[in-house]
């Protein structure tokens, strides 16, 4: 066993000496390699963490949302539907939701105005999310102006801000009283934005949905399962930017491996011949090539993955901000709970290490098996 370890160490010694002969080139290679792994791993970590967070947070989303549609558009729903839906067997609770978008011309940001059923603010005051607070530099005690649907200016005082912890769902929220909501948007009494339904038995959900759609053909039902699936598909690999990053990374790995796979230079061939002439077996030569591949690719993998983890979970994916922010003015801080999975690392390993190492070993096979007497000539 000891002999085996010592043999590996000796061969690694030689491999490293050999790589150090071209310091600049190999340093650049490792740098580029690490960069590619870093980017890919950052994306993988970030996306997985958000998806996981979404699946946990949105667990308590309403069982079903009922939207009224008119000419294919989402329209206000009569509150009178509520009692009728409540009477359907399987429904345990129904409540109205009042929410809408408010565009703030001062900063160019979009807010979501919402009425909280119980614990909401009293008329004349609002509770704002952290993103709103940041964008308007508004704290507890400040006043914000709202322009109502009929042109009037309405002042609302900031009662408190929503906790930083829940920013991922509440960053752009402004909770108002029902009275103020209807004043700002002009939503007539007797109408709500949509209805939130809870069913007694989750397995009956689709049956209940069917009944509702039969009773009210002008509505569509959005089930919680569909909400969760939407977030499973967010940042999907088939989507534009993700596809570009994936293809770019794959291409980078292929190009890096291609340089190795395209064969040995005559100098390398000669050196292998010398090694064989002085007593190295074919397996020793191949082992050396193996360590050569590993030295570059494994180092890059480790460095890239560790840097990616720090990037995503300690700096909230700062480098992605420009891409994620898009045209939003209000941008949440993506403080996601760190989440990392062994399968992610295995995939990265198979992309980053295996092709490159194989590409380093295979071309040397031929050279490693020739009779060493060719070097005598």
């Amino acid at each position: 066993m000891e002999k085996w370890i010592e043999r590996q160490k000796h061969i690694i010694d030689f491999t490293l000496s050999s790589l150090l002969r071209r310091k600049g080139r190999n340093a650049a290679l490792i740098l580029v390699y690490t960069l590619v792994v870093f980017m890919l791993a950052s994306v993988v970590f970030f996306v997985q963490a958000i998806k996981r967070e979404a699946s946990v947070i949105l667990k308590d989303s309403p069982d079903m949302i009922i939207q009224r549609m008119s000419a294919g558009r989402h329209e206000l729903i009569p509150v009178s539907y509520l009692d009728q839906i409540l009477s359907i067997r399987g429904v345990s609770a129904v409540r109205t939701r009042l929410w809408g978008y408010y565009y703030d011309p001062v900063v160019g940001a979009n807010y979501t105005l919402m009425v909280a059923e119980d614990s909401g603010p009293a008329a004349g005051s609002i509770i704002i999310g952290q993103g709103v607070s940041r964008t308007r530099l508004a704290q507890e005690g400040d006043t914000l102006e709202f322009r109502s649907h009929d042109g009037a200016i309405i002042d609302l005082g900031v009662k408190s801000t929503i906790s930083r912890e829940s920013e991922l769902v509440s960053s752009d929220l402004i909770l108002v009283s029902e009275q103020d909501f209807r004043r700002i948007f002009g939503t007539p009494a007797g109408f709500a934005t949509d209805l939130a339904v809870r069913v007694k038995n989750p397995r009956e959900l689709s049956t209940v949905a069917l009944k509702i759609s039969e009773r009210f053909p002008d509505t569509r039902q959005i089930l919680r399962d569909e909400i969760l699936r939407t977030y499973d598909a967010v940042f999907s690999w088939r989507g534009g930017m993700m596809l570009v990053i994936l293809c770019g990374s794959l291409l980078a790995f292929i190009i890096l491996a291609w340089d190795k796979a395209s064969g040995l230079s005559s100098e390398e061939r000669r050196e292998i011949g010398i090694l064989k002439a002085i007593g190295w077996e074919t397996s020793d030569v191949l082992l050396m090539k193996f360590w050569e591949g590993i030295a570059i690719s494994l180092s890059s993998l480790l460095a890239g993955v560790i840097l990616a983890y720090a990037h995503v979970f300690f700096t909230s994916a700062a480098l992605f901000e420009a891409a994620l922010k898009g045209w939003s003015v209000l941008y949440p801080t993506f403080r996601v709970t760190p989440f990392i999975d062994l399968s992610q690392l295995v995939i990265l390993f198979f992309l980053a290490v295996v092709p490159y190492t194989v590409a380093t070993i295979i071309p040397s096979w031929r050279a490693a098996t020739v009779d060493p007497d060719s070097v005598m000539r």
Partner: protein
Amino acid sequence: MIELVNVRKVFNAGQPNEFVAIDGVSLVIDAERTTVFRGPSGSGKTTLLSLIGCMARPTSGRIRLYDREITSLPERFLTGIRQKTFGFIFQQCNLIKGITALENVMLPAYPSGEKHASLKNRAMDLLDTFKILRKAQSKVEWLSGGEAQRVAIARALINNPSMIIADEPTANLDTKLSREFMEIMGRLKSERKTILFASHDPIVYESDLADLVVDLRDGRVEGSVP
């Protein structure tokens, strides 16, 4: 000792550029003796040395090493024998460029898994014997011709082989260095090593060391001088 029985080596057999390098050579080489193979270029000296040194297999014929038939051994065993029994000194040094002299000397013993410290000491001792210890950490490109040659000799000795094979060792050396080289060989001979040379340099084949000089021409033994 080494015995060759009717050894033939043909390159590119059956093709238009077929070339018979060794054409039926039979001879006996005694242990602890120095043998020189002499002849013009193309006479097959290098090929013969590589066949004896287990670097290649003959097309036909038998080779026996210490009464053991090696012609039909699988590659793994052949490599093992080559590693333990022979030390090679090539015409063009054939040191690995870009690494130090010390590393070059240790290289043949790397796969054996010997402990690093003892291997390094042995290598340093060898370099010291040939008076190039101070060049141990120099990259081989920085060595002079003579120094490189001595590193090559040290490398050949790292596994303590019983036989040294040297192919045109003085071809790239001036007279002074050639004589120094033969001096070193003399010392090795007194350590009871078997030495095989291929050379057309008189300094080599006319030296006192040579116990047997074999003349080769066109792959055949023409004569030998005891």
